[in-house]
């Protein structure tokens, strides 16, 4: 090679890439450490949702103390819908139905003896709801399970509604 130009030409023809004689990926992959997530991301979302629901209930309870004439549900509805919408679907269902259920139970004064053991009946539904929640831990946001949980809650509410109406009829009958 006699000239600078010849050297430059030879250099320009050298490859910019050289493949290693063997695949190095297996050795590299074996040494890759799993990514460390920040602590707030490591907690399970269900646990955070539960914490949020408890916190919200506390806030609502405090607001009720401030405004005694207002119902809990009304206070609930006053909360920003975006906040509520940000909760996982499972927690939205639980929060809304449990609230209504609590109100219905609170409004029950005297239950007709004709109804039977209504608390046992409610406990059976609660047990079924717990089983669906367990299944949701393994299959979060599964639409079928969410619908099933919603259906069970609705059955509970319908049952409570029926009990309270029997109670009312009983009162009316007694008055007459």
């Amino acid at each position, binding site marked *: *090679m*006699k*000239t*600078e130009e010849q*050297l430059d030409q*030879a*250099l320009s*023809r*050298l*490859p*910019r*890439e*050289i*493949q*290693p*004689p*063997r695949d*190095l*990926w297996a*050795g*590299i*992959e074996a*040494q*890759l*450490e*799993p*990514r460390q997530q920040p602590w707030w991301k490591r907690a399970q979302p269900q646990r955070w949702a539960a914490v949020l629901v408890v916190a919200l209930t506390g806030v609502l309870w405090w607001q009720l103390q401030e405004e005694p004439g207002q119902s809990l549900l009304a206070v609930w509805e006053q909360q920003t819908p975006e906040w509520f919408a940000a909760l996982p679907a499972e927690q939205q269902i639980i929060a809304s139905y449990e609230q209504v259920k609590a109100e219905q139970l609170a409004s029950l004064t005297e239950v007709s003896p004709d109804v039977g053991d209504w608390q046992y009946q409610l406990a059976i539904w609660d047990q079924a709801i717990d089983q669906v929640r367990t299944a949701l831990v393994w299959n979060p946001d599964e639409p079928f399970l969410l619908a099933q949980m919603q259906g069970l809650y609705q059955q509970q509410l319908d049952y409570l509604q029926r009990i309270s109406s029997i109670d009312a009829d009983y009162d009316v009958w007694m008055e007459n």
Partner: protein
Amino acid sequence: MSAELLRVIQLAQKGDRQAFHLLYQQHVGRVYAVCWRLLGDAQKAEDACQEIFIKVWQRLPEFKGDSSLGTWLHSIATRTAIDLWRQDKRLRFADSEEVNDTADALQLDQQGSAPGEGRDLELAIQRLPAQAKAVFILFALEGYQHTEIATMLGIAEGSSKAQYHRARQLLRGFLGED
């Protein structure tokens, strides 16, 4: 940066190894080239390559996309290879026989070049004195400026330029020996 590449980077940043494997496949050739040329030894180049990709994996969450991934990744590769070259040059000079064997194994001749030309040039580069070789590889093959090379090697910019010209003279001499 294409949307697809961006998605792959984001997945790798979150810890997706398959996505990182794609990035490895895309860049390993260029990373291995700088390692092999600086270290002059296939085994050391492989070890360096592994170290570099492990570093890239560790630092990938810091990559914000200010430069291209290739530029960012290659900067890590070059600096790591220089660190290893610096340690290595204290220990020994590259064994010329070993370099010959590696050059054969890598099939360094390229299309468009005279038979043996690429291989001869690669071997001639390996015969250069350590610092002249590093400066030459970084300037002529990796595209760094003398100011950058001076910083990376811890020498004056003038020294980098002088080493480069010396390297060219030596190369012309080595290649004209036949």
